[in-house]
């Protein structure tokens, strides 16, 4: 078979290169995921929608679903509010050494275990933990606050873990902003506030979008942090699934919840993709 050119692989070569991973994905990833649906539609061997109905009928489960969405949403907002200034700050640093140092701080979470960090929050937030000690010591409160095993703890923990995911895309977009645009705006009479509002911020939106997408979708399905910091009173969807499988052995029902979460996730990904465009990720 004569090839057209050296610089691009032929169909056959491309296919050979990509098939090992593709096969792996198909057998161990795609098939199991698709299999969730048939699994969830049976009870004791009979086809039924009962699991899904069960989920929506019982208020407990709907509450968990809403809580999950609510928490994810809040985490995204907080990550944005906290992360955008940081990303901006990173672009303002003139010295390369200090800049790399701060960038390393942002990347540090990637090099350390999620487990370790979540566990640190347990220590920080517990009744005689660092935060409570500090607050009572300075007299701001009388007795220690119940910070752990609450929605608050979960949100704090998740923001901590997901913040870098918001900072990095925004930083990347801001860094590559054409400085001449800003100079042109100043030249045409805009002061710094307006330049930010009308030039910098709009142009940074792709980064914000990508960051928000990552954070929100990751937050939806998060397991470790809610499991450790949430306690039994703040179940989220992922911990609910875990409970159903490992403690209650409701296999089919768990499959239904998992299938629901899967659908929601996919819908979110597609929706975000339309707005943001996943191709941006490849310029990371």
């Amino acid at each position: 078979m004569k090839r057209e050119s050296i610089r691009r692989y032929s169909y056959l070569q491309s296919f050979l290169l990509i098939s090992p991973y593709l096969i792996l994905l198909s057998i161990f990833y795609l098939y199991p995921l698709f299999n969730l649906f048939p699994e969830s539609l049976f009870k004791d061997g009979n086809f039924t929608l009962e699991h899904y109905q069960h989920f929506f009928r019982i208020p407990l489960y709907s509450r968990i679903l809403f809580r999950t969405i609510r928490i994810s949403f809040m985490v995204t907002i907080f990550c944005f509010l906290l992360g955008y200034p940081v990303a901006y700050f990173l672009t303002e640093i003139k010295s390369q050494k200090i800049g790399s140092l701060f960038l390393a701080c942002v990347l540090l979470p990637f090099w350390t275990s999620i487990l370790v960090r979540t566990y640190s929050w347990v220590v920080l937030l517990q009744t005689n933990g660092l935060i409570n000690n500090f607050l009572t010591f300075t007299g701001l409160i009388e007795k220690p606050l119940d910070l752990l095993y609450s929605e608050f703890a979960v949100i704090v923990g998740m923001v901590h873990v997901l913040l870098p995911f918001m900072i990095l895309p925004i930083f990347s977009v801001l860094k590559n902003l054409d400085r001449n645009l800003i100079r042109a705006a100043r030249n045409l009479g805009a002061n710094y506030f307006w330049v930010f509002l009308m030039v910098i911020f709009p142009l940074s939106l792709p980064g914000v979008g990508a960051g928000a997408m990552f954070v929100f979708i990751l937050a939806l399905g998060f397991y470790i942090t809610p499991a450790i910091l949430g306690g039994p009173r703040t179940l989220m969807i992922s911990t609910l699934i875990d409970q159903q499988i490992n403690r209650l052995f409701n296999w089919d029902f768990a499959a239904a919840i998992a299938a629901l979460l899967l659908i929601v996730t996919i819908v979110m990904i597609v929706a975000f993709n339309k707005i943001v465009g996943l191709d941006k990720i490849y310029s990371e």
Partner: protein
Amino acid sequence: MTLSSNDNILELRSLSKYYGDVLAVNDISLGIGDGEFLTVLGPSGSGKTTVLLMIAGFEYPSQGEIIFKGKSISFVPPDKRDIGMVFQNYALFPHMNLFDNIAFPLKMRKVEKQEIKRKVAEALELVQLSGYERRTPKQLSGGQQQRIALARAVVFNPAVLLMDEPLGALDKKLREHMQLEIKHIQSKLKRTVIYVTHDQEEALVMSDRIVVMNEGIIQQVGTPNELYEKPNNKFVAGFIGESNFIEGSVVEKNDDILTILMKDQSKQRLKYQGNIIVGEVVRFSIRPEKIFITKEQDNSVDFLEGVIKEVIYVGETTRYKIMIGNQGIINLKEMNTLEGGSKKVGEKVKISWDKKNLIKI
């Protein structure tokens, strides 16, 4: 257009290349002699780089053949062709120092160590960068990188050297200097060079022969002089050097003086030497430097009358844009000599030329 002679080291026969539906190279046939400096000249998209890539082996022809030293190499992989190439962006390996860069082809040919050392030193001397072995490409200027790329491409003595717009990234003075250097190296090594460029001046300076390409087709092949003085068609006339085009239909002929009816309905009289029949639609080309402004007193010479619309001073020359008739603009280039100042805008002038310089295309 076929050109072949008996000691052609490289021959292209009816070479064509499709990229999808687009025909980038259309039936190119060309013979290149041993030791020749041949330039393929054309604008972007003319197919010239594609021809080079096919000779080097990075693209395979859709049709046709490439014959090198008598053997067909159309589908031989690029590492087995024994043809050197200098890339537009130099393509020096960034993770190796200059010694390793230049030694690379020798290592691939399993030349022994001592010999490698010797040849690398030779190559560096050839490009006047002796002693730079341990440097890395990043530490060199553009011109130096270019020379190393050249050294690397000749160190293994390939019979043919390909160069893909190697001087494009350099500034004007450096470029002119390098043009001559490359030419010197080529004649010293007696190597065949196929040089691709879009810069017609460069082509004129360096080449033994030039192949002008446009839209995938060869427009004309010839020596620099031939191409400049006797362009075959409008494209070549306009691409190499500058040309003025005069188009119209012949309404009268008196010996060598023609009366032409132009597009703007004005009638002009031109001196032309050659066969023309009345009624013919013609197109003439004449180079700006071959036209001169006649002196006031000279009445015996035939001329065109016009008004100066623009005067542009360019150091060693002055250019005039002169309006003839109602619309036609003629460009005229005149050396700035000491006698007589330049004309002014709005002046009425008479222009003429030696009739052998008007070319019919």
